[in-house]
């Protein structure tokens, strides 16, 4: 028996037996049963696990959850949903297992050589006392192009536990905005898994503003040469918020490029975690990978644990990585103040500028405005 799991909530078993009776497709039933068994085995992730040592999910284990959503309906797809789902390693942790057991499945397919306009918008928001477990597959067929806006607005004491799997086909391109603006008392776990085929392009910007306890796992895999990924993000934390981003960028094949730029702004007694691994596998020649994580601590009580890692099993590569943790530069502050900006405004302007490097990349004006507004609201300032 593993000592690393917390006791899963007994209420799940009853809800699961009700669900399984309503699930008509036998293959899906089988999958759910296997996933639920895995969840019972794995439990809510414990801090005793290396990958979870900075992020204590115990508050989630302490709540009697109700499952939210229309989870018994099975979307039609080609190939059948069960085949699509089978490739998913739901045993990575208790949350991914729970997600599949209760998964509200959906498939979005962008046809070959099609530019989808306007953006695909999905929102994933658990209600108070509920777990919401969306499981979305986005398939970009060869040569297609789309923008996906995934937003979260989980209620206080709600828990959104989501899985998003993205398949970027040959020469396809996806711009992905992941906007987590949950209520201050919400919980959020999300896994984003991306497979990038030959010449595919995945460009992500992940904004984490809300929730009391949140974690985002990213796993991007290059499956054929010529792919490119930009995996950027911002976490803006205050109060006693805790956010954790765990990212894996896997150069399984050569001649792909990845860029990762994550920034954190941490005030009050908030806590951030960034753990990013870039793998350059044996034979992945001509890899070009860059990773950066910069953090701005606004208070002595704020804390961040950052660990950028490069694991290279190949010589012919161009890789760099780095992390910084710092406070506002006194010279920058002085400069702004000599132009007449009061200290608080000068500070806020510098913080805003720090975040802007990530925000200004957003191409949809309305989203950019909303995030700017959320940032200014967070800083309690007008700029």
């Amino acid at each position, binding site marked *: 028996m593993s000592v690393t799991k917390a006791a899963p909530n007994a209420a799940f078993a009853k809800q699961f037996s009700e669900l399984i009776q309503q699930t008509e497709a036998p293959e899906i039933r089988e999958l759910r049963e296997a996933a639920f068994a895995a969840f019972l085995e794995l439990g809510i992730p414990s801090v005793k696990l290396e990958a979870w040592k900075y992020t204590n999910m115990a508050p989630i284990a302490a709540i009697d959850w109700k499952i939210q959503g229309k989870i018994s309906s099975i979307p039609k797809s080609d190939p059948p949903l069960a085949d699509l789902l089978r490739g998913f390693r739901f045993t990575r942790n208790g949350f991914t297992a729970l997600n599949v057991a209760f998964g509200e499945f959906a498939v979005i397919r962008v046809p070959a050589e099609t530019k989808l306009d306007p953006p695909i918008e999905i929102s994933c928001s658990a209600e108070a006392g509920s777990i919401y477990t969306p499981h979305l597959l986005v398939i970009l067929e060869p040569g297609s192009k789309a923008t996906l806006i995934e937003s979260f607005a989980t209620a206080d004491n709600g828990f959104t536990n989501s899985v998003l799997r993205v398949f970027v086909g040959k020469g396809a391109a996806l711009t992905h905005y992941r906007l987590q603006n949950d209520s201050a008392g919400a919980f959020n776990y999300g896994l984003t898994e991306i497979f990038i085929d030959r010449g595919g392009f995945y460009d992500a910007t992940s904004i984490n503003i809300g929730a009391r306890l949140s974690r985002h796992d990213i796993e991007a895999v290059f499956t054929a040469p010529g792919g490119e990924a930009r995996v950027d993000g911002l976490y803006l934390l205050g109060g006693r918020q805790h956010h954790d981003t765990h990212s894996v960028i896997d150069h399984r094949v050569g001649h792909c490029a990845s860029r990762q730029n994550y920034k954190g702004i941490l005030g009050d007694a908030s806590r951030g975690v960034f753990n990013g691994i870039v793998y350059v596998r044996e034979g992945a020649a001509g890899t070009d990978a860059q990773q950066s994580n910069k953090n701005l601590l606004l208070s002595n009580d704020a804390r961040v644990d950052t660990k950028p890692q490069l694991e290279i099993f190949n010589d012919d590569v161009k890789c760099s990585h780095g992390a910084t943790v710092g406070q506002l*530069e*006194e*010279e*920058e502050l*002085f*400069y*702004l*103040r*000599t*132009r*007449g*900006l*009061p*200290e608080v*405004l*000068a500070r806020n*302007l*510098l913080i*805003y*500028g*720090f*975040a*802007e*490097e990530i925000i*200004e990349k957003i191409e949809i004006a309305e989203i950019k405005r909303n995030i700017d507004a959320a940032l200014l609201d967070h800083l309690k300032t007008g*700029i």
Partner: protein
Amino acid sequence: MLLEVKDLHAGIDGKEILKGLNLRVEKGEVHAIMGPNGSGKSTLSKVLAGHPSYQVISGEVLFEGRNLIELEPDERAREGVFMAFQYPVEVPGVSNAQFLRLAYNEKQKYLGREELDPLEFNDYLKEKAKIVEMDPQFFKRSVNEGFSGGEKKRNEILQMAVLDPKLAILDETDSGLDIDALRIVAEGVNKLRSKDKAIILVTHYQRLLNYIQPDFVHVLADGRIVKEGGKELAIELEEKGYDWVKAAGRR
């Protein structure tokens, strides 16, 4: 009297650098403060602007009769003191236009005058940018980020033009400028010269003074003004170097 510095002793990290400096500046005057490296020129600029790392040990600095030392750097700015930096700071993510409008409106608010909205301000900024021949494309760029040395110095003078100070201290504004940039910066400053405002040029070399003619030249050595004169003093310094004034300072 616009600025009156009386027996000023100041320094950094417990080290006294200014050792009894006196200076009087009237509206409409241009003063050059010259001196060798380490004489205290930069310290004087920073003390006047209110840099938090520098401490005033004793003496007085009066700006329009008010004790300047007790004011925060931003209050000094809104009262009308401006310093152009020797090394202007880069502020990534904040556009020049956004920054200048905030600064301008803070001053307007302080003085009880009308603030400008982004459109109105843009027109105002375009006018001011002509003074330093600055392309409006610079408005959208982050403050000083990726600017050349010359562009940064021009941007400082643009800020001076926008904020319209009563007293402008230009700290080594000529350093690192090629001849074209120097000309543009100097012409910009000359256009901003007026009977209502005073300018203090802090410089090591006489070069800038070929373009901006000072009314008074003060030579600083070892934290004190050791020689004063008109613009001909700058030429004399250029010919003889600083050694003879340093010797005078030790006496």
